[in-house]
């Protein structure tokens, strides 16, 4: 069985690392070998954060080689652009329609408003979700990461019970119901928004 490669990207504090840990746990629950490695800089918050999750029969490198990633999940649009070159040709991008203006350090270029169009023009399959809005409607904008995971679950071959067991074991009791609903919202939202 070939290795499945997923990259999850976001802004520090958005929960990219937790989302990738949940994916790694779900793959483990499904009986697969898995490696998950995250990349972040010096500070607690605000910087770009991304994480690789790889699963299959046997995984070696903690990072997927560039050009071989099956799915890129981006919690923020600019971060989708930053890591899109890791995708394989025709790979899937699941992107939160959400913009976090970076604090400027000597770079006054405008924020790239056309990120989604650009990704489509490169031949990637782009799924756009209003994950932050959906999470907010469910009660907490921070659950956007799990909404996106729900959408990701639709395009991966992991059984639903592996996901459900993972949520149950990893998410604290008081947040479990919210995250279950966020996951379900992502499951339902995804197919309607695929752009070619």
């Amino acid at each position, binding site marked *: 069985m070939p290795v499945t490669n997923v990259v999850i990207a976001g*802004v*520090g504090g958005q929960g990219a690392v937790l989302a990738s*840990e949940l994916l*790694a*746990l779900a793959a*483990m629950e499904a009986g697969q*070998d*898995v*490696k*998950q*490695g*995250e*990349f*972040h*800089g*010096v*500070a*607690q*918050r*605000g*910087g*770009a954060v991304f994480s690789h999750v790889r699963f299959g029969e046997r*995984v*070696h*490198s*903690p*990072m*997927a*080689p*560039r*050009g071989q990633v099956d799915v890129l999940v981006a919690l923020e649009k*600019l*971060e989708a*652009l*930053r*890591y*899109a*070159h890791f995708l394989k040709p025709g790979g899937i991008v699941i992107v939160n329609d959400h913009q976090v*203006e*970076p*604090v*400027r*350090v*000597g*770079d006054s*270029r*405008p*924020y*790239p408003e*056309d*990120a989604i169009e*650009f990704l489509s023009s*490169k031949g990637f399959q782009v799924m756009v979700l209003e994950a932050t809005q959906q999470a907010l409607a469910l009660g907490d904008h921070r659950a956007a990461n799990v909404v996106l995971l729900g959408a990701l679950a639709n395009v991966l071959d992991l059984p639903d019970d592996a996901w459900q067991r993972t949520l149950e074991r990893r998410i604290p009791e008081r947040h479990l119901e919210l995250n279950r609903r966020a996951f379900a919202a992502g499951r339902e939202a995804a197919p309607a928004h695929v752009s070619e």
Partner: protein
Amino acid sequence: MGIVKLMSGNDAVARGAWEAGVVFAAGYPGTPSTEVLERLATYDEVDAHWSTNEKVAFEEAMGAALGGVRSMVTMKHVGLNVAADPFMVFPYAGTNAGFVVLVADDPGMYSSQNEQDSRYFAKVAKVPLLEPADAAEARAVTRDAFELSERFRTPVMLRTTTRLAHTRGLVEPGERTERERKPFSRQVSQYAIPVYARFRRVELEAKLGQLREFAEEFPGNVIEEGGAEIGVVTHGIPYQYVKEVCPDATIFRLGMLYPLPERRLKEFCARFATVFVVEESEGFIEQEMAALGIHNVIGKARFTNVGELGADLVAAGLTGAPVPGDFSAETTILPRPPVLCAGCAHRGVFTTLRKLGVLVTGDIGCYTLGCLPPYQAIHTTFCMGASISNATGFQRAGEPRVVAVIGDSTFLHSGLPGLVSAVYNQVPTTVVLVDNGTTGMTGHQEHPGTGHTLKGKPAPAVDYEALIRAIGVEQIEVVDPWDLEATERAIRAGLDHAGPAVIIARRFCRLLPVSKAETRVPYRVVLEDCIQCEECMETGCPALVWGADGPEIHEWECTGCSLCAQLCATEAIVATEVA
């Protein structure tokens, strides 16, 4: 297989140490090593604590090992520089119970000031060096390290890198083996003075000879047979990259990097016209092999010593495959650097220092970010504690107005001796001690000033004012860095003072639970009063953005620090409840 768990490399090292029967562990926080000690502290059987610095931690753990219990010390690569003194001397005596030094290197400098390859330290100290290749191995190799340490009565260096430390993988944990405390024998000839050390020096060489023989049979040095065309010598994380891009190669995987298995390496390399040596950072293995007379290798000529390797770069080195670049030539990929959090108390200090236009020597912590725009209020950052001693040097060079900025944890780590020196030598060094009540950058570790231990028990907290007064500083002032006027007044008074001066800028880190529990009154912008001077944007606060019509404050992010309001000339920024 038994129960399998998803563990990071750091968690797995801690698990292996616990299984090996570690009784005492000490360290100082440093990315990417920090979580090893944090995880060890969660085991009831392990007495783990944060020390003031790595030298102290090393000596404490060393004392415990001499005292007869398995012990460990943890640090990042630059921490080993601080602990180098005991590290170089201890091997002469040798240990009693098992003693392992965990050192985490940071290729790519994700959170470090340099990219030193700590493997060289093992060679200089003449201690065996082990390096695992994933989390599962990290658990097993850590256990092995303690066995090796006791078998040869030597400290063992266990090296990891950021990629190993922070990658989760599947681990099958084992059980703990308790051990009897080994009695310490008071043989002075083993532990003291040069006249005895000269004998120990000779014995150290003999021990190294035994370790060389051991390396030949060490089961962690493995040859994985593959095709006859490509031979590779590799280790640790780079091994995973080689397996990824060249699964059919014949690979000699080294689990022990010092000393090397000379005979086996020579036999291996004789099978190939040329052998690739794939290693991250410097050409340590390649150089050692050259010293052994093995010259049919290609190493650093193909695999850069700069930054982190990856499967792409290893593929490029082995096969010449191109490394795909990103899309920055075709679209705008704005950088997203880390920033000081909304409400960070450091912001008030940097806003003031920028206004004063003084030369600022910095130190190691979140406040290092003060060097970036919009503050640009830190002009040097080198190593732990350097801010104060560098400032003294600048003063000696004739720079009239210098301020050192140092955090609370860093001050206790190695800032204090610099301040004592400034007092002793009567240099008018001005120090801003940014006291946020935690070790912020590495993820909020306790330290001797916080009032709690690593295990969460109450502890005496250092009284900075009393300490600084006791060493002879006469000008000491405590300010709230959210109060710009008071902060400026205190720093000016410090600069004007004829002797050393310390300004303690005290406010808890915003990410601490104690801060989050405070009542928060966010601010908002009254656009009709705004003259769009953009002065507020100079705070570089992530809660303040420039919207379609001018500045906007994200109320859910705003901590109510009021810094932007204090900078606003037209009082257009007001507290929400005042509106």
